[in-house]
């Protein structure tokens, strides 16, 4: 018997059910833009630059304790549900602030994925690349966006605000290191951004000047693709060094620092705002850690307690700054958590159904897509596969997910060829 490969049968469900809440039924998608052979830039229709904001809740966010509460059931746990800004939609009481902006969000309660090798890493890669990891490595969303969306000219276009222990990672796979995310470990400035003390600014300028001259001489009668790329990276590096304040949230108004909170995730969200405001194309903020095999309720309480307010504040700020219209927002996690509450009051991994949230550019907000049964053990309406979501993440910002990456002699599809975007989520 062959193992189930990523290429699922093309007979997946395309439910025409409308989303619950105040959405228009059967909304049409953006429509096929046509098979683009070269990575596309923003669609003809919207010339405004698109940006992306990704919240990765690492470890597996429990859908019960967040967007798909089942209070007073054998699986629901002790917490209540609360009303949100969308009548008829309820979130867990652990997300009171997020509940107030539910009208700016689209919740998908019917995410699913098949099990893949590597419980966390593999599942996370599946969500972030839209392809099963065993067929990879494939580039993560940030690197993909860096090839298809307009990039800022003097800044890194793709930044990951990561937990402390996360270091730089070649997440661009076949797109190459040039497109790799710039990782800010613990939200700190990139490694080696500061000149060592022994080199003052004057000395730095002098040595860069000399280096530039050396490169110009070297490339005079040679093919220049490599040396140009190399020189360009020094230009970008020195731009980045000059812009080091970009990573300093203490430069933001005191009031804002308080609103976001002085804890790590709070500062990271404020940093995300700062980066997006200066034009960074794709910012990912990872919040650690939701893998509560033990004492799920205590830990979700703590983690969502950290998460709820800064997340809400950031969405609201993007909105008031008029940026939400052109910024795709997503809240993702690698899987959900088991309905069954384990003996140590934990919940284990659960890929059969979980919740994902979208907002911003290109997304129909203010409702819920998909549903689970009374105690959350299975999907009852509109299953959405992670690969379909990946298509949606591209389509929402005007990129045709049926396009390809051109790589020398090979072409790699942007999204899994047998999948398509979730039309119900798209404007």
């Amino acid at each position, binding site marked *: 018997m062959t193992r189930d490969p990523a290429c699922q049968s093309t007979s997946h469900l395309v439910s025409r059910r409308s989303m619950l809440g105040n959405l228009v039924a059967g909304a049409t998608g953006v429509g096929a833009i046509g098979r683009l052979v070269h990575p596309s830039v923003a669609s003809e229709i919207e010339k405004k630059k698109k940006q992306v904001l990704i919240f990765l809740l690492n470890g597996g966010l429990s859908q019960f304790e967040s967007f798909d509460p089942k209070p007073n059931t*054998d699986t629901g746990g*002790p*917490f209540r549900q609360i009303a949100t800004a969308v009548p008829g939609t309820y979130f867990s009481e652990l997300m009171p602030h997020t509940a107030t902006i539910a009208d700016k969000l689209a919740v998908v309660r019917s995410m699913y994925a098949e099990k893949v090798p590597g419980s966390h890493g593999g599942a996370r890669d599946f969500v972030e690349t839209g392809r099963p990891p065993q067929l990879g490595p494939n580039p993560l969303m940030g690197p993909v966006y860096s090839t298809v969306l307009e990039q800022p000219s003097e800044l890194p276009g793709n930044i990951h605000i990561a937990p*402390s222990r996360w270091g730089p990672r070649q997440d661009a796979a076949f797109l190459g290191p040039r497109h790799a995310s710039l990782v800010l470990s613990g939200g700190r400035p990139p490694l080696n951004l500061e000149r060592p003390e022994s080199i003052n600014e004057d000395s730095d300028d002098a040595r860069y000047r000399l280096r530039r001259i050396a490169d110009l001489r070297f490339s005079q009668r040679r093919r220049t693709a490599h040396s140009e790329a190399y020189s360009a990276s020094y230009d970008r590096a020195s731009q980045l060094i000059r812009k080091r304040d970009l990573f300093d949230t203490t430069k933001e108004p005191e009031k804002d620092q308080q609103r976001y909170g002085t804890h790590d995730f709070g500062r990271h969200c404020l940093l995300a705002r700062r980066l997006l405001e200066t034009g960074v194309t794709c910012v990912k903020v990872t919040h650690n*850690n939701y893998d*509560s*095999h*033990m004492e799920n309720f205590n*830990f979700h309480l703590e983690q969502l307690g950290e998460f709820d307010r800064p997340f809400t504040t950031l969405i609201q700020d993007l909105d008031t700054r008029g940026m939400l219209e052109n910024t795709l927002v997503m809240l993702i996690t690698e899987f959900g958590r088991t309905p069954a509450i384990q003996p*140590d009051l934990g919940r284990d991994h659960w890929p059969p159904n979980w919740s994902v949230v979208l907002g911003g550019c290109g997304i129909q907000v203010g409702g819920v897509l998909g549903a689970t049964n009374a105690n959350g053990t299975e999907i009852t309406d509109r299953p959405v596969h992670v690969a379909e979501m990946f298509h949606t993440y591209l389509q929402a910002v005007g990129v045709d997910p049926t396009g390809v990456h051109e790589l020398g002699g090979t072409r790699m599809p942007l999204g899994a060829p047998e999948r398509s975007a979730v039309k119900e989520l798209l404007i």
Partner: protein
Amino acid sequence: MSDSTDEKPTPEEPSKYVPKAEGVDPYATRLVRELKQDRAILACRYDATGQFVFTGAQDYLIHRWDLTDESEEAKAAAFESHESWVRAMCLFPNDDRLATGDYVGRLIIWQQMNGEPKPQHSIAAHEGSVRAVSVSADGKLVASAGNDRMVRVWSAETGELVRELAGHDSHVYNVAFHPDGSLVSADLKCRLKHWNVESGELIRELDAGLLYVYSVKYTVDVGGVRGMSFNADGSQLACTGATGVKGIAHSGNARVLLFDWKSGELLQELKPEKDEITTAWSVRFHPDGFIVASGGSRTGGFLWFWQPDQPVAFHMLKFKQRAPGFDLDLSPNGKTLAVANHDGTLRLYEMQPEPVEEEAKDS
């Protein structure tokens, strides 16, 4: 007489406990009854007569088992009022009242627990869970501790707020009245605060930090004083939890910290003979002079028994069911332990061998 000589046992070897004459024999602890409920039981308490055991569970109900009904079909009477799980529970010492707290912040003082229980006062005591409740020795005050980092003291008579004790910077996990009327509360970071209830002033702080760690990997606080109990005269305080927890995927090693109340010094770090991945959830001082705790994790559930002057448990009972003992209570006659299990069964263990005669002993 025991075979112990002048030689002290090596630190890791528990010495044998010698049951007192007319006392119980922990070594003989055995399961005598299983009382089944639908959902995981989080708390259990005997009433003063030993006829009833009250439980709080994940079904939002307070259950009352009448132990005089020894039939197989025995069912608990169940009482509604809470709207979430009930873990916090404390009986009034001198009358038939019960204080309970739930995960959504409600404190209920019930009356007529032995007859037709009904809430006397239903108080929105905390924002977020009520993690523990305690009743003062004179039965006049009820203290509650919660996730809003507050400790509140209520009049048992009127249900009104008497004192608000602020100062904890993390969720308050436990609270207990001392026989002298003062109060101790303990939080997630395992800092204990000793309060003068009348004045509302902080008397001193104790540190049970062995039961707490900040996990860098998971960027979260892990730990807390899960169970807390004074001995009868209040000269010692036991705090339970786990040490060496690596994160949120599984627990660390069960520990009970024994404090000398007067000096505030840590007397002992009580541990099982063999460290397994478990948490110690609840603890009781037995009048015979030993300490018993319940706990467990996914790997299973346990009862541990210690002598207060020796760190290593002299006896351990591993439950046949793979379900931690979340709570423990000692029957008024000191012979039986009630254990609240995750699998929804309240289990009674007698600390004495099976009677040779046919007559059943009083429970």
